[in-house]
């Protein structure tokens, strides 16, 4: 009798790796990013970002919309920096059509772009500590967001998808007294932001979780095409606002916040310091807006047709470089509008940042890459 008896005591399973899917539904991927991990205990052996759960075919949709309608689509891929997104598309079309945007509109656009940057950064400044386990900073961040949202809502009517850019300028003139109210809001935020700063930036546990975790060196950031706060935290000193100025940045002194450590904490710090810088820039722009009289848009023909040709307009979006490559054949729709998004490039670095770290580190790194899934999947 050689019956095979199976008893469950053995070490048959020892040494096998656990496969864990973080996402597409997971509280830390804010969206539908999916990471397929191989774990050895809690250590990540390999990580593969799987994207595309939110692919909406934005580029294909651009090709069947006229240039006015495109702006609606462009502000949706990165829903946290809607104004900057539509700005890039508008710039591309204006450049191709040779439209000179009125001075007042340029300065207003710059102010709004900076406010949008602050709104975007505040979102991450709140959500990142939340992922590390600190539940309070998010409410402080959102208090400031709410203050600025009110200003943005007043001028544009929207809280998220502003749709305030038009080809050739802005949708309409700012309401009377808006600039002073915006300045007040900026002052208020500047006054209260140190609350958030003191609460989390130097917190011992926060430092223990983020310093030296998820190190991305400058070379690697460059190799992956990372940009924005993520790249600047690694020492890649590149900011389009200073290095290839668009809008009114050429006549502003833009301080670029750079760190060299390249870890999660420096990414967070870049974001935090950037907020101070952007608030100051926005205030300067608002001062200029008050001095300039004139229209905020130009009269467009009934049918907007970009002449045949191509152009690439890139802007320093809150999350990094956002580019639109516009190819026109002289029709009222673009023949091709290629979209280069910041998050897409930044998320690439995950596959090298994650292996070798622990699961809690993974969350810390994921949060510090500051991506929006819509911006990744387009």
């Amino acid at each position: 009798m050689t019956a095979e008896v199976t008893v469950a005591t053995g070490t048959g399973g020892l040494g096998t790796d656990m496969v864990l899917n973080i996402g597409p539904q997971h509280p830390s991927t804010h969206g539908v990013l999916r990471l397929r991990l191989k774990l050895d205990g809690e250590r990540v052996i390999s990580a593969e970002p799987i994207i595309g759960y939110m692919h909406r075919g934005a580029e294909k949709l651009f090709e069947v919309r006229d240039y006015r309608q495109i702006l609606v689509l462009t502000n949706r891929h990165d829903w946290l920096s809607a104004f900057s997104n539509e700005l890039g598309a508008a710039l591309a079309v204006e450049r191709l059509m040779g439209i000179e945007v009125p001075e007042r509109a340029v300065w207003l656009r710059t102010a709004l772009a900076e406010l949008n940057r602050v709104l975007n950064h505040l979102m991450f400044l709140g959500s990142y500590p939340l992922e590390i386990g600190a539940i309070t900073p998010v409410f402080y961040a959102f208090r400031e967001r709410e203050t600025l949202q009110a200003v943005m809502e007043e001028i544009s009517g929207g809280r998220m998808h502003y749709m305030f850019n038009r080809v050739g300028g802005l949708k309409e003139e700012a309401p009377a007294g808006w600039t002073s109210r915006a300045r007040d809001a900026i002052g208020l935020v500047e006054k209260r932001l140190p609350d958030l700063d003191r609460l989390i930036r130097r917190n011992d546990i926060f430092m223990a979780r983020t310093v030296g975790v998820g190190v991305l060196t400058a070379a690697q950031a460059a190799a992956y095409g990372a940009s924005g706060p993520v790249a600047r935290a690694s020492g890649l000193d590149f900011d389009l606002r200073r290095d290839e100025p668009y809008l009114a940045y050429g006549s502003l002194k833009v301080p670029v916040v750079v760190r060299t450590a390249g870890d999660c904490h420096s990414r967070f710090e870049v974001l935090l310091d950037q907020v101070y810088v952007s608030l100051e820039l926005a205030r300067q722009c608002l001062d200029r807006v008050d001095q300039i009289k004139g229209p905020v848009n130009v009269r467009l023909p009934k049918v907007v047709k970009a002449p045949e040709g191509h152009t690439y307009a890139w802007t320093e979006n809150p999350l990094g470089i956002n580019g639109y490559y516009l190819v026109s054949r002289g029709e009222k729709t673009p023949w091709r509008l290629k979209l280069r998004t910041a998050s897409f490039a930044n998320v690439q670095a995950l596959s090298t940042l994650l292996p070798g770290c622990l699961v809690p580190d993974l969350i810390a790194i994921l949060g510090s890459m500051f991506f929006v899934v819509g911006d990744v999947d387009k």
Partner: protein
Amino acid sequence: MNPTLADFGHDNGWIVALKVVGVFVFLVVMTLFTIWYERKVVARMQVRPGPNRHGPFGLLQSLADGLKLAFKEDIMPLKADRVVFFLAPVISTVCAFTAFAIIPFGPFVSIFGQKTPLQLTDIPVAVLLVLACSGLGIYGIVLSGWASGSTYPLLGGLRSSAQMISYEVAMGLSIVAVFMMAGTMSTSEIVNAQAKGGQGELFGFEFTYPGWYVLLLLPSFVIYAISAVGETNRAPFDLPEAESELVGGFHTEYSSLKFALFFLAEYINMVTVSALATTLFLGGWRAPWPITQLGPWVNQGWWPLLWFTIKLLILLFVFVWLRGTLPRLRYDQFMRFGWKVLIPASLIWILALAGFKTMNNENLPGWQRGLWIGGFAVILLAILLWPRKRPAPKLPLEEEVAQRPEGSFPLPPIDLQVPVSPRAKRITADREPVQ
């Protein structure tokens, strides 16, 4: 006339039953209250109002939530181990309730004419019962993680078991100092031992020291407080249920009443460790100093229940405060903290305390005492001033970049000057800055 160990075990059956029901009701009400309290406190810390819809000040919010939970669908995962999956929350809750049996609420009271201590029972090893119950309660968490048959709960269960083993050691060691001072493990007698301060003599000065062990044994209290947070899985040590990492940790797959039981157990554990801290370190049910000046009545009858509850609520506030303030530790940092900081610190503190007690008790000659203290100080200094290996100096970034091997990825220098593109030049030239 305060209750001692000998006063227990003489109650009527119906008084015992009454006390059991009393403790049960106290814990359930405390849980409901603590949930509201936590949400309200944390809300005030986060510049928002918190629950305010149900009942006055939203007090009935947790009752409503509890009822809601009861009506939720009870989900049993397909891959779950059915029996263990069911047992886990039961174990958690039963252990949580049992631990409270030895917590003294007050001195002798009269219940329907029967004079009885306001404490369910007391045994010579009462404090160990709490440790045993918290140790068994973790089985609930670990088993729920295993029985759910899915990855996140399993990771949560694994974390929980390691966490519990480590922090129970630290917790037990921190309590040892209390045993040494009180000379007993029975809770009622530990409370008695803290009733009066004593006369001490240090370097020729005589002074009266207060009785609360939080003052006498401050290091123990600190270690107890830290490990209590770890033991109850509360932030910043809430690794088994870290929701941003493990979704829900061990209770990811639980719903309905089973989930409610975990919730109940977590809050009761919080109340229990707070009550134990009150009993061991904060003088138990005795009124604090300024109130004792009002007269002896403050420590008699039912009044002590009030002081006890107030102390409890203050400790619970600290739990909530921590949760509102601190981020979560990483797993390995947390374990390292337990094993390399808390436990050695406990051991050294116990050793120092034992040495101190020995020197006080026996009449050592002065020179010998001086020798001991001197030797101790030398060892301490040697540890503190031991030379450390210096870390290699960090190269400046430029040199690090220059040292990279041939053929590395091209990297722009940090002070890169990007030439202004002709297009941008044209735009800026066209537009004169407005003054």
